[in-house]
């Protein structure tokens, strides 16, 4: 199965040294799950302060400053992984540094829709899969 691991991080900024340490841990984690063949994709996002939210209402585009929901923890990045089942995904999530001071939300990817898109040529199937 494919799972999206959404990384929610506390809003406080990390200092330079701490940030570097966390980044190193992410690299280590990424290398490990690449070797095990579970890595599909990942990205870090710019802070929530840079977020813009868009809604279309009555044919008007409403643009507001800030994330969709103001919460204590903000979406900071994601990993897209291949895991055998939820227990395996939980095992991966628990190894992400963010799990220690923030939260990792696990969402199964709806592969049926993905397959439909591939079947109809809307998107290409992932070359590595």
């Amino acid at each position, binding site marked *: 199965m494919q799972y999206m691991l959404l990384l929610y991080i506390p809003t406080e900024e990390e200092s330079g040294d701490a940030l570097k340490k966390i980044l190193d841990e992410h690299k280590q984690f990424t290398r490990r799950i690449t070797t095990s063949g579970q890595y599909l994709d990942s990205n870090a996002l710019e802070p929530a302060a840079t977020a813009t939210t868009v809604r279309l209402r009555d044919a008007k585009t409403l643009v507001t400053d800030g994330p969709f929901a103001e919460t204590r923890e903000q979406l900071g990045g994601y990993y897209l992984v291949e895991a055998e*089942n*939820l*227990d395996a*995904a*939980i095992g991966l999530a628990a190894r992400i540094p963010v799990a220690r001071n923030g939260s990792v939300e696990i969402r*199964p990817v709806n592969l*049926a829709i993905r397959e439909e898109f591939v079947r109809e040529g809307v998107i290409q199937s992932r070359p590595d899969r």
Partner: protein
Amino acid sequence: MGGAMEHGSIEDFYRREHGRILSALIRAVGDFELAEDAVQEAFASAIEQWPREGTPDNPRAWIVSVARHKAIDRLRRQARFAERSDELRRLIETEREGAISTERDDAVPDERLSLIFTCCHPALAQEAQIALALRTLCGLRTEEIARAFLVPAATMAQRLVRAKRKIATAGIPYQTPSREHLSARMEAVMAVVYLVFNEGYSATAGSELIRRELAGEAIRLARIIVELMAQEPEPHGLLALMLLHDARRDARLDDKGEIVLLEDQDRSRWNREQIEEGLKEAGVAMETPQPGPYAIQAAIAAEHSRAARPRDTDWRRIADLYGMLMRKQPNPVVELNYAVAVAMDRGCDAGLEIISRIEERGALRDYHLMWAAKADLLRRLGRLAEAEGCYRRALELAGSEPERSFLRKRLSEVSS
């Protein structure tokens, strides 16, 4: 074919065998919901056929075999959905290999342990875990579970549907957890079983009959776990704890439904047979260098059960056991129980001293049993005015009517 099984005994058979049969079928078809529907249909066929044609020699294998055919039929009908074809292929293959033979009942694999861990997976809401466990392992109907938990049947049905959908969509596995996660997951399973028991034992809502059934189902669940994981001591402790408490059920309330305290209970009304079994299980649970919290609580219940009269109670041993429990699970409620045991062993002053330490930390201020325990010790010491104040505070905080009625009675005894 054997004799014809009556409708009532097919019901008993359903209750007894549902968990085992469903667990085998989920393994065979790889889909929780499909397996459940197929098992329902197979039992419906049994109710129709067995009284007329006689009961098959291997009723369990018969149900599994019929359910598998029903599942294959369903998959064939849905085969146009591409994602179903894997399951179908697998089913037809196992059919050809005769993986589940109808020759012998023990040919049906016992997968209940996987079923328990799937139903009690922490990724499901706890109320859903409880409902699933009762539905699948105990073979309770949705309406019966709804009645027990005082929710409309439609609400309970939806709760079950959502849970099953999450199992399928989120990929909750059908397996026993790996060694490293086993003990944490066992804890969660046992917590579910104990919650079911407490709902049946001490909940104030619902009819007495329904509550009795729930407590019975919790004990049945614990028996299943003990049977499947006999080498683990803690499930024996959970089973013992529930057996020993449940054995006192008839003596716990008087004719008017008022609470009778342990020391005032008519011990001849305790269920001796159940106590004997509880004592045995409690013994097994304590045979380990590091007994768990259920084992220790069972050992405490065992001390009470062993005493022929209240004054024969070994309070020193009970205080020691509470001390042990406090080190395992440091929490003020356990400490309160420790205080009461110390009071009974070394005198009320010693108990009050521990209670005042709990109070100084600001814990349990809104817990009615803290005030009731304190009031009781003060009453025993003849400090009636202070006892009165504590009973009043307890009465303000108590929720259930039998408890309130009991406290009112005590209050009138100490009021001048």
